[in-house]
């Protein structure tokens, strides 16, 4: 018995040693795998990648949204000199926590900080800016101070109330493809054209989107976010009154021109006599010399889109000029220089070859 006992003790010690070795081995492996020096890499304010040191192979690691079990974040994971760099397909989201997992087990996590001093977006203009609009108003433009979110649910943030009837009304056409400019800071909203076009079924069923004699309030929700995820600085509302129908084409022949003097950088003013589409007006009109050279200058809207002013870069010279106007220029009701939005074919003889550009000649003395 006395001989056997030391053998048992020896066995126990061996067992403990083996277990200890395994534990040390496992701990050292785990410690080698454990991500260290986690660093989020930013580019132009966006969290474009994360890097960390780990002994694990890239194929054993995955980046997951916090709490997400099945779908890893898509991206490229590369390893160079013991350092892993994960570049997601789209930049990491702000204030979001991500987990680094080894064979499905979460080892570490990191959170994307939000940028400080980011300016909240604002609404700079709502066109038409005037407070009376025709009952067949076709479009409204919302102009923002910076690019807005590009995930397409603008109408969730826009509401219209008929203050005369004291109820919310649906006036804008829901479009699968929203109409933004390339910078994504200007949105075009169409009042349902099917309801504006005379005798189309929507027009017969529901009538015009906005009714003559009624007062409306357009409300823009503060929750609308910009491309960096920041909400609008404040909610915005615009009241407007609906006047009579606009049934005429804009006619450049009736426009008033206020001419500057030669030898000066005086302002040339053009008065349309009615408000026109703000965006098209700025892009459809240009001044040329008699020989066809464009006159460089700044063009701005005046009198709540009822006119424009042109400030030249160089002094006006004495002589003949021409003002060219693209026929695509529209008034607030979608009537352009060549055709009405709502045209009765019985009353109109179609012009087979309408002018693409209308011309007004003038002389500066």
């Amino acid at each position, binding site marked *: 018995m006395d001989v056997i006992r030391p053998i048992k003790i020896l066995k126990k010690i061996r067992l403990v040693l083996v277990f200890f070795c395994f534990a040390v081995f496992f701990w050292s492996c785990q410690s080698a795998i454990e991500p260290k020096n986690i660093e989020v890499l930013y580019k132009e304010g*966006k969290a474009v990648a994360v890097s960390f040191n780990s002994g694990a192979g890239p194929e054993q690691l995955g980046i*997951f*949204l916090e709490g997400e079990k099945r779908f890893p974040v*898509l*991206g490229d994971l590369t390893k160079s000199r013991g350092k892993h760099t994960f570049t*997601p*397909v*789209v*930049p*990491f*989201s702000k204030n*979001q926590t*991500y987990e680094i997992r080894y064979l499905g087990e979460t080892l570490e996590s990191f959170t994307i900080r939000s940028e400080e001093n980011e300016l909240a977006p604002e609404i700079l203009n709502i066109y038409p800016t005037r407070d009376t609009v025709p009952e067949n108003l*076709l*479009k409204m433009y919302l102009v923002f101070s910076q*690019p807005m*979110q*590009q*995930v*397409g*649910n603008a109408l969730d943030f826009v509401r219209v109330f008929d203050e005369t009837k004291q109820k919310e009304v649906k006036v804008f*056409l*829901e*479009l*699968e*493809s*929203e109409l*933004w400019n*390339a910078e*994504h800071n*200007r949105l*075009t909203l169409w009042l*349902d*054209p*099917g309801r504006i*076009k005379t*005798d*189309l*079924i*929507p027009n*017969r*069923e*529901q009538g015009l989107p906005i009714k003559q004699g009624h007062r409306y309030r357009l409300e823009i929700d503060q929750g609308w976010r910009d*491309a*960096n*995820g920041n909400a609008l600085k404040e909610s915005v509302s615009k009241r407007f009154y609906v006047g009579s129908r606009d049934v005429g084409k804009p006619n450049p022949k009736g426009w008033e021109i206020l001419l500057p003097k030669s030898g000066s950088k005086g302002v040339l003013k053009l008065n349309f006599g009615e408000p026109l*589409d703000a*965006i098209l007006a700025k892009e459809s009109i*240009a001044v*040329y010399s008699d020989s*066809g050279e*464009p006159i*460089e200058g700044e063009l701005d809207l005046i009198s709540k889109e009822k006119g424009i002013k042109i400030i030249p870069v160089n002094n006006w010279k004495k002589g003949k000029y021409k003002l060219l106007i693209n026929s*695509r220029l*529209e008034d607030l009701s*979608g009537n*352009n220089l060549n055709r009405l939005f*709502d045209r*009765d*074919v019985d009353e109109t003889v179609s012009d087979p070859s309408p002018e693409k550009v209308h011309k007004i000649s003038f002389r500066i003395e």
Partner: protein
Amino acid sequence: MRKLIAGLALIALVMLSISATRDTFTSDLKAGFTLGDPDIASINKLTFGPEGILFMGDTKSATIYALDTKDITPKEKGDEIRIEGFDKKLAASLGTSTDDVKIYDMAVNPISKSIYFSVSTTDGTPVLLKLKGEKLENVPLKNVSYSKIGLVDPVGLEAKDRRDRPLRVWAISDLKYHNGKVLVSGLSNKEFSSTFRSIPFPFSESQDYATLEVWHAAHGQFETFAPIKTFDIIQIEGKDYLMASYTCTPLVLFPLDELKNGVHTKGRTVAELGSGNSPVDMISYEKGGKQYFLMSNTNRPVMRFKHESIAGYKDAVTEPVEEFAVAVGVPYDNLPFPYVLQMDNLDPGNVVYLQRTANGDLLLRSRTTKWM
């Protein structure tokens, strides 16, 4: 023995040259493709052409891209699909929440039956994804084989005018490949008009754009100028027609051969499809030797038209509509699938669609046309 070795060497040489030929084989359609970064700004519309070529419409840079997906392993039938919470899975795969992603379009590769999605995120990063089982794969957009064409738009007021005027943004509203041409419809973010483009593929310098006008419904007294939202091609008595659906609901036929550069073409309205609605997608399928068209909508269920009803409708919609709220013209059925956001043919017997269900869930599922 020597003969045997020589014979084996010869076979190996032939095999090697065959595999080399296969690797370097480039079809005529892909002959003009280049390898590199196409610099895609947005992917608003997708459609497949032949040989696994994916056409992508980029509204931001007013460009159509043709991408060689190299996804050309044929498959006869698409997988049966039913994925609930599809948007949540997609958002997780992009490391973000559902509020920060939007699925712009979906297209099925007719060869491999793989489903592709174009997605945008809050900051506008364009992403192309491919479904594999229940998971999504990223389809790289850099270092790829592609060709591209910018959408021509006459901008200057005078020929001499070369100043930088703002680009006319032209939201690509639909895109289809038909008989060697990429057909494109678009919505302007400024003027309210309709232009339809036909671009020969492989891309060259040439493209036709026609303005399309509609003699419209009801009393036949008014003309409609409106942009096309979605379209398909229909063959009637051996002639191809553009079947266009407008933002303000008319369904209109234009003979495809009359859509030529700068020509102002008048279409024939064959149906008016009700109010407060904008069409989304149009596809066709065959069942029992007959062709059907399906149209999904923003605010209506999926509509089904029979080819024979459209082909047999010889009039324009001109009669007064006496009955209130009744659509006129070619008859159609409303299928019990509301809020279908995306739709495409999965294979000859199935369609696949993305639907917002009553409880707000986004469901991706396939369905046999047998019951449609």
